[in-house]
């Protein structure tokens, strides 16, 4: 299947893809498979009962990557996709997902992706997910990602989730369960405009001794947009967890931060931090003394903050 220019642009935005990626990949475009490749160590197969894929990564696979971008350019299209990742023991891989929607029509376009990660002992997964919307139709662009992570002993999962532009409505739900010695690092960056709404919920359960989690969100709410960040870390064993929400509000933007901690073990060490505020006046002043206009200064501050 051939991709048109809009689809190619979406791929660049969400996966930095300019050509066919190295390694294993599956490109999904308007609910159709636009290309797929398995490798000796990474096998991608379609599910038979529901829409989606199984991605099996062989134990001790090293320095390989999987790209699974999704693009939607058809107005009115609504899909739910289930992708399951089985990461073998000791594997070390990069997984790049992401969804771009270009909706020029009057009907909503919606992609709900459910990703489940079964991460084997001592495996290391770096997961990058970017969401992007464009098109000036009245139809909304809706993305509801659900992410479930199951980490075995000693595994490490790093997640980078980015949604900077154009998604009208998003409810993202991330849950994780960590066994002994497992580590989860989440870096979320979010910016909302106009009337957009974004809700991000995390529930991380630290179930084994020495498990650690660090969930950090940086977000900017502009215009009349609304965000809710609800992150809960549950310590069921001697473990350490940290969650942080750092937000900038502009115009009539609104943010609700609900950091939550639950300690069910005497040796669970849990910390949360949350800060919401407008851009500090002196930051604008400093950049203006360097010759930037107020608008340029604002842009630099936001770009830096979301980097």
């Amino acid at each position: 299947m051939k991709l048109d220019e809009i689809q190619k642009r979406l791929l660049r935005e969400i996966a930095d893809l300019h050509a066919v990626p190295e390694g294993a990949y599956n490109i999904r475009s308007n609910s159709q498979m636009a290309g797929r490749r398995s490798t000796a160590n990474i096998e991608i197969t379609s599910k038979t009962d529901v829409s989606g894929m199984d991605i099996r990564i062989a134990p001790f696979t090293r320095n390989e990557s999987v790209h699974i971008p999704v693009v939607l350019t058809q107005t009115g299209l609504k899909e739910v996709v289930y992708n399951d990742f089985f990461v073998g023991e000791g594997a070390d891989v990069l997984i790049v997902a992401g969804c771009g929607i270009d909706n020029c029509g009057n009907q909503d376009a919606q992609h709900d992706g459910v990703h489940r990660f079964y991460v084997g002992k001592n495996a290391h997964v770096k997961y990058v997910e970017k969401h992007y919307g464009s098109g000036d139709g009245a139809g909304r662009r809706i993305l509801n990602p659900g992410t479930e992570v199951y980490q075995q002993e000693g595994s490490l999962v790093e997640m980078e989730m980015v949604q900077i532009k154009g998604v009208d409505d998003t409810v993202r739900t991330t849950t994780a369960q960590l066994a002994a010695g497992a580590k989860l690092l989440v870096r979320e960056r979010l910016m909302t405009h106009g009337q957009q709404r974004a809700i991000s919920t995390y529930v991380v359960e630290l179930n084994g001794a020495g498990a650690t989690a660090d969930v950090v969100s940086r977000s900017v709410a502009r215009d009349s947009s609304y965000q809710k960040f609800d992150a809960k870390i549950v310590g069921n064993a001697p473990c350490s967890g940290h969650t942080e929400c750092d937000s900038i509000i502009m115009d009539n933007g609104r943010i609700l931060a609900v950091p939550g901690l639950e300690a069910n073990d005497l040796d669970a060490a849990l910390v949360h931090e949350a800060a919401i505020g407008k851009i500090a006046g002196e930051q604008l002043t400093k950049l203006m003394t360097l010759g930037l206009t107020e608008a340029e200064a604002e842009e630099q501050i936001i770009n830096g903050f979301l980097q």
Partner: protein
Amino acid sequence: MLELNNVSFQVNEDKGDKEIIRGVSLHVPESKLVVITGPNGGGKSTLARLIAGIERPTEGRIRFRGRDITDMGITDRAKLGIAYAFQQPVRFKGIRVLDLVRIAAGKELSAAGACEYLSAVGLCARDYIGREVNASLSGGELKRIEIATVLARKAALSVFDEPEAGIDLWSFQNLIEVFENMRRAIQNSSILIISHQERILNIADEIVVIKDGRVEAQGPREQILPRLMGTPSAVSECHMISAKGGTDA
């Protein structure tokens, strides 16, 4: 270069208007280093903010290279060639030292180009270039980065508000060299430093003493400095150690 004519500045407080600057007139000549000194709370920092455009005078006019800039905003004054180093440098989450120096230079500066400015203020550039200008940097490091951003601007008039405030003596020794170097390369530019430091006063061409919002004295260093020695307007480095942390608001 810069002229202040009868500049006043007052703020509204609960108890009524309070005048911070009262009819100040002063002149910063071309290719000269002028130091403004005087007791704490006398209005020196306010004067620097009025020059940078952060505050606007309630009365009087400010002229820069013959042009009336009284009604100009911060950005326009910066573009005209006025640089300003904050007494308390601002922190930014996510903006790197390299980004800030690049913004200051106003062009796509190479990392090596940015390193030159950092080296000039005594920072080992390679260690700093990629760091964020955030709370992980010490007061002394932030202060030097602040001065590096002013150097990078290559401005016609560089204003420094108490460069010695909030840094340790060791860093201060290095900073003196920075100003001595700037003094040597002053051709076609001017420098205005707010300071109590004897060693900074020693490299001034002219000294202005501000007290209670007024000019108490101004003139060539040779004339003014002898009168100031031993007063709070000119403290030596030994005093700096005992009076550590005493900065002007």
